């Protein structure tokens, strides 16, 4: 797992905003190269890794989808050498002031998101009001002339907070949503090196989940899997989070998605397996939609039976998201064991309750 932690820390040190995933894709590609038989990149940038099964051809296929794109910002204007910006993905402006960022201009420029003094804001804004994103700036420390030369409207701004290790085998950083899941899929591929699985395994690092679900709609179409698992992060219980059905204890197990995006028989299968493995898990109830790649995958082509596995993280969509390395290991192990046990005729056993 030390190796997975280093890999994940590397991923957390990279940009790769929705629609511009190439920096992170390059590193995932390198990690997956020795673990799969074929690697390709989809027309819109998702990374596809095929690890062939040991069954007779044509083999059934399972798709593991973890989105690799990250939330961030994009430049909308330049005023006196300071950058105005808006969000890519869901960003709460209240976590931005003082945030280290990288501006992807003609070269990479480090900078900070800054909050102007209240008197420069409409109606001399009081300190108990949040400053809207449209009033914040990025300051690169450069003078106006240089900024005008190096930065254009439309340039990306990514979070630059380096990952940090907290006590108790916890890792904090930006983009743990969803690179924690990329790490879990990688751990699964590692475990599969020692397993004679029948099915073909398609590992996908998908694009644009945070904005368009573009990867989730297109990769399954190209791959046409029999089954799919979307791997994503969910909400850990902690400061600021509601203590209700939507949050889970950090580091106390994976969560199994349950709701309309999930095929109930797949849920049952994963639940049985977790119990057999004596692995802690919680049910992640998703009454309407899962907010994951599963939303796209499920409705591709004729429809695909889909499951959602998640790891709880604290402070989602901030640059200090916190994950437990244990939960990442568990998720990888659960997927690998599920794949290990998939019989060639599994699809025949995947039935609705009301089917005889």
């Amino acid at each position, binding site marked *: 797992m030390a190796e997975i932690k280093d890999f994940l820390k590397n991923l957390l040190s990279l940009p790769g905003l929705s629609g511009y995933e190439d920096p992170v894709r390059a590193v995932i590609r390198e990690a997956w190269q020795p673990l799969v038989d074929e690697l390709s990149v989809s027309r819109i940038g998702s990374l596809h890794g095929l690890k062939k099964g040991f069954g007779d051809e044509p083999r059934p296929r399972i798709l593991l989808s973890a989105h690799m794109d990250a939330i961030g910002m994009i430049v909308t204007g330049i*005023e*006196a050498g*300071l950058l105005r910006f808006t969000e890519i993905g*869901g*960003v*709460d*402006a*209240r*976590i931005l*002031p*003082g*945030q*280290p960022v990288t501006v992807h201009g003609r070269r990479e*420029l*480090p900078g*900070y998101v*800054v*909050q*102007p*003094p209240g*008197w*420069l804001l*409409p109606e001399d804004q009081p*300190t*108990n*009001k*949040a*400053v809207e994103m449209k009033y914040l*700036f990025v*300051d*690169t*420390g*450069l*003078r106006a002339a*240089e900024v005008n030369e190096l930065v254009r409207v439309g340039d990306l701004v990514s979070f630059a*907070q380096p990952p*940090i*290790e*907290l*006590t*108790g*085998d*916890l890792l*904090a950083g930006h983009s743990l949503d969803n690179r924690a899941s990329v790490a879990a899929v990688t751990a699964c591929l590692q475990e599969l090196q020692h397993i004679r699985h029948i099915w073909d395994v398609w590992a996908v690092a998908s694009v644009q989940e945070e904005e368009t679900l573009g990867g989730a709609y297109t990769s399954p179409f190209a791959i046409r899997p029999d089954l799919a698992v979307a791997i994503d992060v969910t*909400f850990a219980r*902690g*400061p*600021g*989070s*509601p203590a209700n059905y939507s949050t889970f204890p950090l*580091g106390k197990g994976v969560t199994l998605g349950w709701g309309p995006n999930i095929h109930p028989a797949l849920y049952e299968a994963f639940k049985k397996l977790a119990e057999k493995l004596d692995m802690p898990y919680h049910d992640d109830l998703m009454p309407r939609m899962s*907010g994951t790649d599963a939303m796209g995958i499920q409705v591709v082509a004729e429809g695909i039976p889909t499951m959602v596995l998640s790891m709880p993280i*604290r*402070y*989602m*969509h*901030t*640059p*200090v998201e*916190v994950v437990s390395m244990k939960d990442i290991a568990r998720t990888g192990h659960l997927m690998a064991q599920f794949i290990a046990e998939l019989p060639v005729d599994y699809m025949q056993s995947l039935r609705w309750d009301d089917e005889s």
Partner: protein
Amino acid sequence: MTPKKTSPSTSPLIGAEQIALLERLSNAVAVSGAEHEVRKIVMAEIKDLADDIKVDALGNVLATKHARQEPALRVMLAAHMDEVGFMLVDGEDGLYEFATVGGIDVRQLPGKTVLVGKDHLPGVIGAKPIHHTTADERRNAISLDSLRIDVGNENGKKVHPGDRATFATRFQQLGPSLVGKALDDRLGVVTLIELLRHAPAHIELLAAFTVQEEVGLRGARVAGYALDPQLAFALDSTPAGDLPSWDGAESPRYNTRLDGGPAIYVADQGTLSDPRLIQHLLQTAETFGIPCQIRQPGGGGTDAGAIHKQRAGIPVVSVSVPGRYAHTAALVARLDDWQHTLALMVHALERLTPAILEQER
């Protein structure tokens, strides 16, 4: 003959060595009331620069470099070692409530990384996921009582309520800028160390590296009394508010501007600077071609506010390096402004004689 003008931007006084020292000081942790880390660095740096060094009852470092000729003028120079930050006040199992120490806008805290305790244990200040917020809620600032410092599952073994914490920002040079936490007032600390190094022979230089400036100028008060100077300068960092207004207009209110050179104080919340000293600084700047600016009179304050009322009164003025975003994770100052600040002070001390006090205020 016209006076020889120096070119302060190429002045050798602040170079790689001084910037490296600023980096160490910026990365060190010294929240008001717990200044030991910075004090240790200062003590090591000045041990060969001063004739007499002591640490007083509050933790100030008081260093004297004796004059080597008469008539000597007793000049106090003050720079504060402390920085704004936090104290853990309650909690366990890795999640701690905390209080702010010094003037911190709580809106600067969510989503930041911090260093906790003497061992600099890393921690984060998280925020509720945007998915769990409403648009209405996002219009209000996140309150301090809902924030926690999260150091992980350490079960209270490594950190405790009472420990200090501060932003985890690492110092960087970005183009013409110096960027880091606590540059207010580590810029002043390095400036003061350099002034000890370059003390003119006719000045009895009384250097005070003060504590607790951010919580009420407490160190400066007792240092001013103990050192008993004839006049004093406070060396600090002051906010530059030279950003465009929300509607893109240039704001008439800016306090100071980056690239405008050292900021000379005329009036702030606690001090009406001594006009003789203001004139002396302005004349020095003009004589040597050093850019400088007058800080817009208004609120705020420096160690000068405590020093000028000690004993029978001490003439004071403050000289600050302008910096954007003071008291946040990252202050942005310009290297040029800092170099000009040191150049101005070096020349001002060289030109300073007891005659300045003969004229009545």
